């Protein structure tokens, strides 16, 4: 549904046709006044066209020359930006980023496992096991006593043995 302003404009510009035209003209309260205003609008249009359409551009070639310079600068800047973009993207493509991330994670996990493994309390030394076995064998060493001093913080264990008749045959430090 056109507003009055739209219909009026279309009527002034002779864009109303057929039934729409007849209906609009019939709705005008003063057809003569409307026709006078239409004539005025035509005169206004002619005045504007006559007075404003002939404004020429001075130094046309200089205008184009300046524009070419700006476009050349623009193209160079765009090319530089594109090069930078390419360089950056060739260094850090998405697959490369993924591989780098996965490798970093793997190194971290290996390091963590190694460190945690080292921090676990040391298993009982094979030497201690052998000495203890020797002590508890009453045939070999009936009066043997073994004292053990352990400083866990420094990871040092001192075995003090007395009455040990012989070292076990499989003693590693023999």
């Amino acid at each position, binding site marked *: 549904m056109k507003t009055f302003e739209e219909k009026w404009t279309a009527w002034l510009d002779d864009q109303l046709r057929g039934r729409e035209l007849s209906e609009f003209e019939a709705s005008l309260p003063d057809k003569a006044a409307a026709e006078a205003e239409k004539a005025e609008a035509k005169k*206004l249009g002619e005045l504007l066209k006559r007075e404003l359409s002939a404004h*020429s551009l001075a130094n046309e070639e200089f205008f184009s020359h300046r*524009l070419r310079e700006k476009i050349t600068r623009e193209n160079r800047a765009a090319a530089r930006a594109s090069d930078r973009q390419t360089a950056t993207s060739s260094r850090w493509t998405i697959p490369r980023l993924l591989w780098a991330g996965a490798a970093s994670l793997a190194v971290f996990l290996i390091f963590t496992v190694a460190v945690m493994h080292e921090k676990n309390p040391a298993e009982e030394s094979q030497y201690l096991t052998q000495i203890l076995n020797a002590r508890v064998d009453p045939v070999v060493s009936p009066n043997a006593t073994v004292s053990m001093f352990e400083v866990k913080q420094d990871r040092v264990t001192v075995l003090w043995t007395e009455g040990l008749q012989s070292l076990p045959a499989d003693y590693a430090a023999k």
Partner: protein
Amino acid sequence: MQTEATLAQSDVSELDLVKRCQAGETEAFDELVTRYRTRLFSMIYNMVHSEQDAWDLAQDSFLKAWKSIGRFRGQSSFYTWIYRIVMNVTIDWLRKKQVRGGGAEFDDAIQLTEVDPASKTVPKKEALPHEAMERDEIRGRIEKAIAQLSPEQRAAILMKEIEGMQYHEIAEALGCSIGTVMSRLFYARKKLQNLLRDVYENV
């Protein structure tokens, strides 16, 4: 105005030029600039009434067109497309100028009676012949009257009356509906008729 045949012919070669521009050929763009520079400059000048500003705005518009020509899909004619860029650049500039100036140069609320239709707006230039002086005066009156319109109304009336564009072309160039264009034309004409009646009745 161009006939349909010449329009179709020029549109075909224009499309070809656009495609070459999209392939990065600055020479093709140069050709388009040569075709439209005067029309666009004249249009901008009629909007801003300053040669230097119109020159700069025309340069900005063409540069913007070059940068975004890759996005031109040929759904409208090239000249409608570039008019849209020109209008955006110019209306934006006018709005910023209004904000910087803090004034209401084209406030629609300005009363028409604030402008004395008989006022002399251009100083007399003694060196010019009588007819040229009279013409300068008329032109000054017209520019002053157009300056009373909002940027959108200015654009609509100038594209309609000077460029002879159709409603749908103006709507495309201004990015609004045809109804809005017609409404802007209605108010622009009313205002200009009030301000310039004595001019067009006596010329």
